[in-house]
């Protein structure tokens, strides 16, 4: 009575131990990766020909005196070697002070605090849209493999896969904002509005979220389609069909269930694509999130801000990958958890 249960418990325990080793190992490696990334950003900044002082001074640099500019260089701490700059940045960052954004003239922590929420909103809405849309289209396409619908969806997805995100975004602005005048072209609220209200944000969220979702769609649709087609050929699905169950039940209850598991576990690995997509979408739609701030920081050579945002993006990617590995490991016992 107890023996079979004991064996199963033992296997589950082994599995969980393997997982915790994986998580612990990854968590231990994360600080090293993040540290290397910050060092790299500072090194790249030092190696680039760009002068942060001229960037900071803007047009006034042309009439400013040389002494004035040197004083500013010292004030910004840009006169020291980059390793020293990195070291003191690191010391401050560990105490929670992420330094000063030179281009936005405010603390980096505040920039992120004000903007992160808007990015999370945009990305999560887009992600849900992608999931729902991807699932629906994937199922439709897989239902009749090689049918008209399948060929249309697959063809459209390959075309979308090839279309650059900014191109999609500009096309959407042209069509929905300029031609049809249905939706606002950009920003968080109407230009004349002075307060942020939910309905304003809702209306302004539609286009960027839809564009971001559509740009992510091809991978999801094609993946679901592929694994559904594979699942439909599996024995338990054939068995279900043989028992005379309705096609709908076979597809959604039996085939989809086994096709979905590996798919859901891989979601975490989509984080890098989402981040790069958000960079372009936020910029085209003037969405006030961290992704558009990253572009601004890069163009203005605002290294303190750029470093913090790069760390943020790296952390998101690491967490996404870890989540994917853990979920996959849990779902499929055959996967080795060697981290």
């Amino acid at each position, binding site marked *: 009575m107890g023996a079979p249960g004991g064996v199963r418990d033992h296997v589950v325990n082994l599995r969980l131990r393997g997982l915790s080793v994986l998580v612990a190992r990854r968590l231990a490696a994360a600080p090293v990766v993040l540290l290397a990334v910050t060092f790299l950003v500072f090194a790249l900044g030092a190696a680039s020909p760009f002068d942060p002082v001229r960037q900071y001074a803007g047009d006034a640099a042309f*009439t400013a*005196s040389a002494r*004035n500019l040197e004083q500013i260089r010292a*004030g910004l701490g840009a006169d020291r070697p980059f390793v020293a700059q990195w070291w003191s940045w690191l010391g401050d960052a560990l105490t929670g002070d992420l330094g000063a954004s030179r281009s936005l003239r405010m603390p980096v922590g505040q920039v992120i605090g004000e903007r992160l929420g808007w990015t999370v909103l945009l990305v999560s809405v887009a992600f849900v849209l992608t999931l729902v849309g991807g699932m629906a289209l994937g199922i439709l396409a897989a239902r009749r493999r090689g049918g008209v619908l399948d060929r249309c969806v697959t063809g459209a997805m390959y075309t979308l896969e090839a279309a650059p995100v900014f191109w999609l975004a500009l096309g959407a602005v042209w069509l929905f904002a300029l031609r049809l005048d249905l939706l606002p072209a950009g920003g968080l609220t109407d230009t004349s509005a002075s307060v942020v209200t939910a*309905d304003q944000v809702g209306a302004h969220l539609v286009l960027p979220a839809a564009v971001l979702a559509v740009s992510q769609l091809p991978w999801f649709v094609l993946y679901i389609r592929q694994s559904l087609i594979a699942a439909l050929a599996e024995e338990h699905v054939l068995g279900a069909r043989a028992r005379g169950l309705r096609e709908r039940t076979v597809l959604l209850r039996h085939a989809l269930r086994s096709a979905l598991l590996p798919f859901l576990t891989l979601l975490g690995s989509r984080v890098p694509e989402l981040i790069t997509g958000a960079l372009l979408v936020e910029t085209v739609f003037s969405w006030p999130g961290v992704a558009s701030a990253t572009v601004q920081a890069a163009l203005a050579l605002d290294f303190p801000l750029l470093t913090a945002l790069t760390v943020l993006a790296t952390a998101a990617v690491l967490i996404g990958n870890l989540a994917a590995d853990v979920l996959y490991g849990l779902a499929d016992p055959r996967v080795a958890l060697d981290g």
Partner: protein
Amino acid sequence: MHYPPFSGRRRGVLAATLVGATLAAAGCAGSAPSAGGAKGAHTIVIGVGQEPDSLSPILGYSKDGAAKLFDGLLAHDADLGLVPALARALPEVSADGLTYTYRLRDRLSFSDGRPLTSADVAFTYRTILDPTVPTTVRSDLAALDRVAAPDPGTVVFTLKYPYAPFPQRTTLGIVPEHVLGTLTGPALTTAEFNRKPIGSGPYTVDTWRAGEKLVLKANPNYWGGEPAIKQVTFAFILDDNTRATRLAAGDLDAAALPPKLAERFAKDRTRSTLKVDTADYRGVMLPSGNPVTGDLAVRKALDLAVDRGAMVRGILNGDGAPAFGPVAPSSPLYARELEHAVDAPAAERLLDEAGWRKGDGGIRVKDGRAARFTLLYPAGDALRKDLALAYVSDAKRIGIDISVEGLTWDAIEPRMRADALLMGQGAPYDPDFVSYETFHSSLAGQAFNNPGHYRNASVDALLTEGRTTRDPARRAQVYGDLQRALAADPAWTFLTYLKHVYVVDNDWTGVGAQVEPHPHDLVGPWWNIEKWVPRAASATTS
């Protein structure tokens, strides 16, 4: 038959609600409150292409006045004359020209209700003089030695040397010591004040979302009277085409536009196009260290050979003026007699006489050296690129071979000493501004000052005399002589003055522009927006 007064409107609201509900079902809600009709003239939305880095005068925000959020001791009127603002009158100047004394108006206050006194004025200027504060305004105040506040209503500035344009520097906005007094050095670069400042001006900041918009609200307690326009929104739209489209769509009430895009609004009866004179010029800096551009004959020949009229017509769409020196044609100090037509034969004669003979391929040669140099321009600046290409083809005609290169400023900086550069600058407030830094030999090669190491003893003497002389008649003479000296020994080939073009809805009276500097911050015909008055609201009421 009587309709209830709002029936038509109510139907509109109903329709809007239905549409809104439909849109909301699709995941997007319409903006019901503004759907009713025309926007009131008590608010304005202005589309601009440049966003301020900060709103702190200490860091250089709107340092030449018209700051909207702040007042200076003095301000500029429509003709750029100095008028008292926070000061009760223009300053009293000591006989040696070293001491400037300002008396403040009574009962001044910041928008948070705290009084504004001479201590705040002194604090503002002392902070800028502090070498640990990263600000370029310190360069503008190079003449200032110290500032004192002997009593709450008096401010005394003491200069290191007599500097006649000093009152022009006191249009800088005054910041509150009680807000910023606890911060020092670099901490001022990230103060919350930089984005949500407290000043004494006609407007206060409501919200500022970087990259999107800045919303200002009227200050009801403004000492100059509450503005009639209660809300001013600056929408930051970098792309020129988008700005024009949004203006046409009615999303914007006013916008800064490039001349070509403003053309479509020229016949629009509901909008006015303003073409504003500026002191913003473009020209080719010719470095003295380069053996070709350093040759006086070459510099004078280029000055004669350049077809400025064609540049104004072809490149600026007619919205500009030929430039012959660093003083704008709109200035009373302008030396009109220096204007001349393009004269390529004269340029060729001049080069022939100087020993530059035509060699292979029509390129001139002197002492074995070909008349050849490189002209740099900042990449991405389409106007400067077009001007550079026009300059090259004009030079080619007289046998001078120029190659152009578009680079970033960081790549240009180390090459300015040897290569020509298409530059753009200019401030209308005083002829000393910008010109001293650009042409005085004592600043040769100092950062971006006098990048071509131009040295001319009489130019030096005139620049020095101009800034130390307060007598207006004498100054007019000096700056006239300066323009003539620069024409006789051209440090630059001055090309064109620009016009800045704006389109503004005809909903307000009092709209009029000042002669403008090289653009920055919120420069534009909205310099005095606090004095604009909505037109008798006939068409806008429902």
